[in-house]
């Protein structure tokens, strides 16, 4: 195992990684920007290195500073967390060149899975079901039209390098296709520096369900079941649960099996996620693979009892995956709520500030992952995530009742501060959510229903 690991991230995930390291007896190095000099992980870690000013490009995305910080402190490995450099194949490559272990898959795996067209083709070859469509970059507007007509409307045009809901458009009629192609392609070029698009069938009532996998560097891979991530606002997840309600066990098993096959096909190493679109008939289609630990990984941990970050560390250190597929036993139900520093009454506008008092929920089967503390000045320039509240119970209804109790206990106050905790309680109270029969349109419907019409 490593003696010392550098954590190339900030916020709650930096604390998450530091805790896993401490439990394994690994010393930690935090890196921080000037904005984050008072952050929890800076005092929690065994060492901390100031790597640059606030803007991420000059600190958390600045590869030379991070690599030098690792070398100066003698860290043997770098944990990238999520976001920032976590899925940057160049960073993984530079780590390797500098004798640092990048805690994640090899650079070439990140590169191939990061290109949606390549990833889709690879996974189709590995036997994963793919939505009807272009299965690769569309050659031009005329090609787009031809493929759309073959696929059948509605269809969706998406940037090959896209993500987070940007660079995509749903098309309902043939006469929209040519103009839309030109617009989305130039948008994609401007945003991602890559104007290639692909096109596929658009599923109106779609669920976003993902499979957690673990693979070691000796070719062994297992899956840890699914997470339901359909509670999204503008493609940002707000709440996740595991398992996925009303998804038959045989579908979950099949999604797991094809994900393991996909991971093996690309030589995946570490913890990874296979995202699927699930339609009304529980048919599933591969969407993309993520090469990082996910924000929502705790729900999988709570139902399986497996610490995913510890597994990442063991695998990166060259350990063999000791878990067999049969060791992964799902128990009960878990749900995670992301508490963001945003104002739900002002279109989720950022609402950061200095936290004067912070009351976190506690008691049975409640877990909180946060970097917040009373007196913490939340920087405005980063991700609005303040805390993840996770609850577990034997059944979904009990887990949701427990989450409602936990969110009610949560308090973060200070000048100008608002959080999404209250809004998440509205989601929990929504009849559609409670039934477990919901899709990615749920949040828009909850918002449309207004604050007094929840049930």
């Amino acid at each position, binding site marked *: 195992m490593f003696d010392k690991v550098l954590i190339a991230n900030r916020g709650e995930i930096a604390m998450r990684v530091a805790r896993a390291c401490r439990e394994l007896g690994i010393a930690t190095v935090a890196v921080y920007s*000037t904005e984050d*000099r*008072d952050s*929890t992980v*800076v*005092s929690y870690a065994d060492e*901390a*290195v*100031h*790597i*640059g*000013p606030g*803007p991420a*490009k*000059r*600190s958390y*995305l*600045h*590869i*030379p*500073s*991070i*690599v*030098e*910080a690792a070398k*100066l402190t003698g860290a043997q490995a770098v944990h990238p967390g999520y976001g920032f450099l976590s899925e940057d194949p160049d960073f993984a490559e*530079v780590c390797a060149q*500098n004798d640092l272990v990048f805690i994640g898959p090899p650079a070439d795996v990140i590169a191939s899975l990061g290109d949606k067209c390549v990833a889709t083709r690879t996974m189709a070859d590995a036997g994963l079901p793919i939505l009807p469509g272009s299965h690769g970059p569309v050659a031009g507007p005329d090609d787009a039209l031809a493929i759309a007509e073959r696929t059948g409307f509605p269809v969706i045009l998406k940037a090959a390098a896209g993500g987070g809901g940007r660079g995509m458009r749903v098309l309902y009629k043939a006469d929209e296709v040519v103009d839309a192609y030109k617009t989305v392609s130039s948008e994609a070029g401007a945003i991602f520096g890559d104007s290639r698009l692909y096109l596929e069938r658009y599923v109106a009532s779609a669920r976003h369900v993902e499979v957690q996998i673990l693979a070691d560097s000796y070719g062994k891979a297992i899956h840890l079941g699914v997470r339901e991530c359909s509670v999204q606002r503008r493609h940002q997840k707000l709440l996740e649960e595991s398992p996925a309600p009303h998804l038959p066990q045989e579908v979950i098993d099949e999604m797991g099996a094809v994900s393991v096959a996909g991971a093996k096909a690309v030589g995946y190493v570490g913890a990874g996620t296979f995202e699927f679109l699930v339609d009304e008939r529980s048919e599933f289609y591969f969407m993309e693979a993520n090469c990082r630990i996910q924000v929502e990984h705790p729900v999988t941990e709570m139902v399986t009892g497996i610490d995913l970050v510890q597994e990442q560390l063991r695998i990166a250190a060259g350990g063999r995956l000791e878990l067999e597929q049969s060791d992964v036993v799902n128990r009960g139900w878990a749900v995670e709520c992301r508490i963001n520093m945003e104002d739900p009454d002002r279109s989720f506008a950022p609402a950061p500030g200095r936290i004067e008092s912070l009351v976190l929920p506690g008691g049975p089967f409640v877990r909180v992952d946060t970097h917040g*503390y009373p*007196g913490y000045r939340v920087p405005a*320039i980063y991700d609005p995530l303040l805390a993840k509240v996770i609850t577990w119970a034997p059944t979904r209804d009990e887990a949701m009742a427990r989450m409602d109790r936990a969110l009610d206990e949560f308090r973060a106050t200070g000048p100008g501060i608002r959080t999404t905790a209250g809004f998440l309680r509205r989601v929990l109270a929504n009849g559609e959510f409670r039934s477990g029969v919901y899709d990615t349109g749920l949040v828009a419907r909850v918002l449309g229903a207004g604050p007094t019409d929840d049930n």
Partner: protein
Amino acid sequence: MNEPEISPADPNRTDGVDAAIIDLAQVQRHAVELLAQLDRPPSNLRIQAREILVEINWAEPTVIGEVRSIEVHREQREQQRTQPVADTDDGGAKEFLTSPGVGVFYHAREPGAEPFVSVGAVVRPGQQIGIIEAMKLMIPVEADRAGRIAAVVKGNGEPVEYGEPLFELAAAEIAEAA
């Protein structure tokens, strides 16, 4: 994030730093004036002006070492990391040329060569004052302002973090050179 985009391949640019440097001495003077006007000593004084932060804590005599809040713990860690900025005997403030990145700091182009600058030297903005080796690349470090070198803070071959003082500038020279 209105700051201009800077390429990671060119990490030794310091755009925007000029704009952030304000008169530390002035802040310290204000702090002292403020303190002089206080009837009784405070336990905490914190003055922040843009990116300059002057924070002073006075320990209570009754505080036991082990009993401390995480905030105190953090302060202590912070003090270890940020170089102490002591004021000079005559009450003037110190100014420093600081590190624009993380790496190993060298005084000279190669072992045995003359250092780029020595105590007493007058530097111009943009003048090379050292090298930071990061990822086996030798990145020139340039003075971001004018002044006379009063002391060498960071030794040749020592590791540096972002923002660490490399050279102290003589206080009296600052206005002169500016």
